[in-house]
Every structure is written in C-alpha cells, then in structure tokens.
C-alpha cells in the first residue's frame, strides 16, 4: 500500500514540475523576427579582409591558408611577375567542403582572412556556394579585425626575419633554399604579445588582454620545434 501512495505522490510531483513551467517565459527566439546575434568570435563564413583606406586586399598570396585547410576548400590562383612577386588572380573558397575549423584564420599572419560571425548564406544551388574574390571581399567589408602590429626590425640576426613583408618574402625564400625541404616553407612569425623579446607597446585603446595567440610557426633555423627530445 505504501508503494502505491508514494507512486501516486511522485506522479503528482511530476505533474507539478511540468505545470510550473506553464507560467514561465519561453526561452526560444522567433527566428525571422528576432535574430540571434553571434558572439564576435564565432566562426561563420570565411571572408577576405581589406584595408579600410586603400580598399585592396591584405592577402599577400603566401599560400599558408590553402596549405592549412584540412578539407582543401581554399584554392588560390596567382601569377608571378618579373620580381617573383605573386599577384592574386583568384581566391576561391568552396563552402560545400569548408568545415569552418578556423585553421586558415589562425595561420594567416597578415589578417587577410577571417571567419565572420555571419550565418545566413544558404543558397538554392550548390554551385553558388563556391565564392570568388569579389564576393569574399564584399562580404568582408564590414567585418572588424585587428591589424597585426608590425614588429620593428629586431637586432637578433638569425631568429626573426626582417619585418617588412616584401623583403621578408624574398629573404625567406633565400634562407629556405639550402637546407630545408621545399615543401616545409619557413613562415614569418606573427606577432604574439607574450612571446616577443622586448615589451611591445600595446595600443592603449585595445582593452582585450591579448591578441588571439595561435599555434604559430616558429622556425628557428637551428632547432625545429618538434625535434627537441
């Protein structure tokens, strides 16, 4: 008999708990009317960022993002001019394949590519999901981003190549030649707050504690990262 009593008691408690939710305010959003605004770090669509003043792309065709992408969604076509300087012909991102992992954004040293917090880009036709430079740039117009702070030329010879992108490009190529295998391209080290030798003067207005520090490619010529045992 006692079992029956507390069975009924529990049944009623169950009813009351669901009942008490009746009065409560609903937690769901009515999508088309109220939109969900994503936090600023959320990885939505991949966009190409461009300089506000000059309006041309930050991308210097270093092919790092194409190499870092696990699903090979980024294809870059470029042609070399006489000074072996690469000019971007077409930057294709194939959203059928892209898995929005954010590796391209982490690897890029020139803040040229970013995953913007936008999610409404579904299309009716699969081929519309392959975006080219103009669509990427136009989608990236209003996306705020931190410009990577350029390092001053640093006294330490071997470790850090010179700061300016143009020269570092050619200089990398020369140091890369002799002993590294071609496919292991040494990459210029992006600026990280905690790691630079002399204290970097941070622009005061940026309250956020640190530039997003990612696994960056630090390639000292003498001791590659993974080799120390």
């Amino acid at each position: 008999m006692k079992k029956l009593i507390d069975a009924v008691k529990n049944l009623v408690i169950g009813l009351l708990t669901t009942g008490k939710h009746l009065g409560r305010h609903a937690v769901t959003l009515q999508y088309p009317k109220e939109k969900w605004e994503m936090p600023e770090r959320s990885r939505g669509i991949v966009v190409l960022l461009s300089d506000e003043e000059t309006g041309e792309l930050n991308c210097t065709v270093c092919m790092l993002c194409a190499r870092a992408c696990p699903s090979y969604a980024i294809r870059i076509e470029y042609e070399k001019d006489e000074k072996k300087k690469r000019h971007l012909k077409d930057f294709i991102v194939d959203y059928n394949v892209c898995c929005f992992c954010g590796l391209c954004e982490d690897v890029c040293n020139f803040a040229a590519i970013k995953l913007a917090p936008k999610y409404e880009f579904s299309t009716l036709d699969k081929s519309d999901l392959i975006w080219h430079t103009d669509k990427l740039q136009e989608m990236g117009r209003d996306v705020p981003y931190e410009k990577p702070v350029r390092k001053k030329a640093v006294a330490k010879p071997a470790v850090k190549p010179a700061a300016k992108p143009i020269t570092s490009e050619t200089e990398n190529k020369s140091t890369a030649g002799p002993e590294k295998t071609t496919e292991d391209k040494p990459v210029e080290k992006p600026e990280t707050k905690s790691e630079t030798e002399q204290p970097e003067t941070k622009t005061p207005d940026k309250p956020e504690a640190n530039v997003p520090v990612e696994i960056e490619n630090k390639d000292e010529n003498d001791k590659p990262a993974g080799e120390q045992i």
Partner: protein
Amino acid sequence: MTAPGIHTEEFQVNMGPHHPSTHGVCRFILTMDGEVIIKAEPVIGYLHRALEKICENRTYQQCIPVLDRFEYCTSMSCNEAFALAAEKLGGLEVPERAEYLRVIMLELNRIASHLIWFGTTSLDLGAITPFLYGFREREDILDLFEMTCGQRLTYNYIRVGGVAKDIPPEFIPKCKEFLDKFDAKVDDYERVLTENPIFIVRNKDIGVLTPEMAIAYAVSGPSLRASGVKFDLRKDDPYSIYDRFNFNIPVTHNGDCYDRYLIRIAEMRESARIVRQAIEQIPEGEIAAKVSMNYKPPEGEVYSRIENSRGEMGVYIQSPGKEKKPLRVKLRGGSYNQLQVMPELVKGHKIADVVAIMASLDIILPEVDR
C-alpha cells in the same frame, strides 16, 4: 511460451536504419517470437567515413578538425585524446593555463553530452518534455563554447600543444551563473523522471549487464560503473591535471538501465563541481606551447586514452619520424563495445526494451562506424 500444438514461427523485424530511436544510423535485425526478442543482430556501417584513412594524410593540426567529427556529441574529448597522444609522441609540455582551460571545456562538454543523453532517453521512453528541458540547459553551455572558440558542436579548440584561444573576460561570470542554476535544474529533472513509477517500471531490471560481461566486452564509462566496477580513467589512470580536483565517482551495483540513468545524473553534478573548482584555481599565463603547423614528432607510437561521457576514448598514433603526417591513427570509441554487447542484453526482452536499453547505454553511431 506459446501454447503447445499451435504452430508459430518467429518473424524478423527490421528496427532501423531509418528509425527514430537509433541514435545515428544503425539497424537491428530482430528475430521475434510475438513481442519477445530471440536474437538481435546489429548492422552498422551506414556512417563509415574512413576517418582513420583521412587522418593518415593530414598534418597533426589538421587532424583535429577531422577528429571533431569522430564523436560529435563530445568533440572536445576527441580533440583532447588526439592532442594528448600527439604531445606524448613529441614530449611537448602543455602550459598550466591550457591544462585548466582543457579541463573546464572537457567537463562542460561532458555535461552537454549527458544532457543530450538525458533528452533522448526520456524521448525514447515517451516523455517529450524532459528532452526540451535538457536542451535548454545545453544551449547555455553551447553559448559558453561559442563565446570562446566560435563553434557550437565541432569546436577545434584543443590543439596539439595547448588551446586555440584564451577565454574572453565575460566567460567566467557567465559560467558561474550557469553553474549556480544548473544544480536546481538537475533537481527539476530528477523530480520529473527519477522517481516516476512509469519510468522506474520501464527501466528497472531491463538489460542487466553483469560486471564480468562488462569487462569481457571492454564496456567502459557509466555503463561499466553501473555494473559495480569502480573504474574511471580520470581517477585510475589520471591524465592532464584531474588529480588536482576532488570529485567522487558514482557507482551502483545491479547494472540495469535505471542504474545507468542514476549514474549519469550524478555524473552531471560531479562535472559541475569540477568546473567550479577549475574556475577558481585557473592561473594566468601562456595558453599554448610553440607547435608549428608542420609539427614533426619523432619516430614512435603511443595509445592514449581519456574518459569521455561514453566511456574510454582512445587514440593510437604511430608516427614514422620525419613525416609531418601520422603513419596510422586508430580511434577507439566507447559505443563500439557497448553496441557489441547489446545483443546479449536484449535477448528475452520486448521491442520496447530495445529502445530503452540502447538509450541507457548512450550509444551513438559515429563512434562505432568511424
């Protein structure tokens, strides 16, 4: 149990692959005598994406997003298992703060996965409302994840050598606010389901898993602890910094569906406790060791295993030495063995119990098919 003299023959029913209660795509060929099941044979392979073949020609950092899809309910633990194995290979040291961030994310992910389990278990037994309550809490956790790493399901947050991004300043207050109201919510779940006589009758003494059979079939995680074997990798084979937090391991002894339910509800509370302690003790400092995109670990092989919400998740990596791509990555998920033991548990029960047992074992199919 049919009356003598009456000729009856069993008939086969296909449960799945398009069936609402098989989590993922899986098919059971049930040979039934009336309502009672005589033999159940799981047919899998619908979700086979050859993850191991893909990982064989990806670099170590690129493997992490691939492994997010290995077990999408707790993809943090997939990242962690792979990252631990890669770090053991290369002998990398992970900074303190990264360890704490990993533990916070892992435990939050365990709560989220248990909430999925809680929702689908109640849904499979017919109570639809707890499913919605469970997912309401899970949304708060997903917001926390989206705030830090940008994605809600496949995070790509734990990297080889550390963590991708540091937590934004508003993460800790929001996390504290979630933790404070989470215990009250779990009491709500308990009130709706735990003592509910219908729920008890549907789950008591259904699908009893004896300790010997559990260990023989290498079942791990909550299903093993429900059979009375006190074995939790976080305590028995401690990895990362789990030895710094005090939490206890819930164990029950008769190994039926109801015990597996009780264990997981208790585990949710334990994980919340761990996250609370981790938030207080988190130090400042580095969040990632220096690991290049072309990380080349020395020649060697390692099998590292961690405790995720479905049991022991193990990653075996063999690296040939000079290559930046692993020679072989073998993934081991908890559901693989639990699905292997399902036919033994299901014999003699009814078709409605197959659903209850599968839900209580918390089997999801991407882990089985890889």
